C-alpha cells in the first residue's frame, strides 16, 4: 500500500533561518502530494499541493517540488518566523480510490526568537 515518511519528531530553529522538512513517499500509482499545517488547537489546513513532476509550488513563503525520480516532496522556507511554529503533515493520494489520503506522522516545527 501507499506510505509516507517524514522528518521525525521536533525541529527547532531560530527565526530567520531556513528550514527543510523532508517527505518521501511510496506508491504504485501516479502521486498527488500535499502539505498540511496544524497550529496548536486548530484544524489542519492545506499549505500546498502538487502532482506535477519537477515543478516548484509555493504558498505563504513555503515551497516544495515534487520529484518523482526520488519520490520526494520536501517542504522548504528560506526564513522562518515565530508564527511558523506548528505541526506539518505530508500526505499522499496515490491510489485511484476516492478519499484515500495517506498521512505521514507529522513534523513539529518550533521557532524561537
Amino acid at each position, binding site marked *: 500500500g501507499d506510505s509516507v515518511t517524514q522528518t521525525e519528531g521536533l525541529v527547532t530553529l531560530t527565526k530567520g533561518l531556513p528550514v527543510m522538512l523532508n517527505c518521501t513517499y511510496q506508491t504504485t500509482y501516479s502521486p498527488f502530494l500535499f502539505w498540511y499545517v496544524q497550529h496548536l488547537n486548530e*484544524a*489542519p489546513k*492545506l499549505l500546498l*499541493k502538487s502532482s506535477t513532476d519537477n515543478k516548484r509550488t509555493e504558498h505563504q513563503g513555503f515551497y516544495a517540488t515534487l520529484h518523482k525520480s526520488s519520490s520526494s516532496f520536501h517542504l522548504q522556507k528560506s526564513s522562518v518566523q515565530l508564527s511558523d511554529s506548528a505541526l506539518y*503533515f505530508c*500526505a499522499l*493520494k496515490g491510489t485511484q480510490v*476516492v*478519499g484515500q489520503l495517506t498521512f505521514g*506522522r507529522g513534523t513539529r516545527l518550533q521557532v524561537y526568537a
Partner: protein
Amino acid sequence: GGIITQTPKFLIGQEGQKLTLKCQQNFNHDTMYWYRQDSGKGLRLIYYSITENDLQKGDLSEGYDASREKKSSFSLTVTSAQKNEMAVFLCASSTRDRGDTQYFGPGTRLLVL
C-alpha cells in the same frame, strides 16, 4: 467559503461506554471523512463516505461505527470506549476530485476515564 462544525468539542467518557461524535459541513461536498489523531502517529482514517448513505472503512475502523444520513452530516460512534484512551477525532470533507483539498473541522477531544 464554508465551515465544518464538530460537536462536542470535548468528550469525557467511561470505559465501555458508547460515544457519538457529530460533524456538519456547509461546503456541499460529496465526500466526508473521520480521522483519529494521536500524538506522534499522524492522522489515521477511520471511515469515509463518498455520498449520502455510503460508508467506506479506513485502516482504523475496528471499534467504530459511522453514519451518513444526509449529505451535510457525518457521525462517528465509538462502540466501546477504552480506559485511558485519549485522542483527537477530526472530521473533513472534500469534493470527489482526485487532487481536491480536504477541509478539516476543529476536532473533538476524547478522554476516557
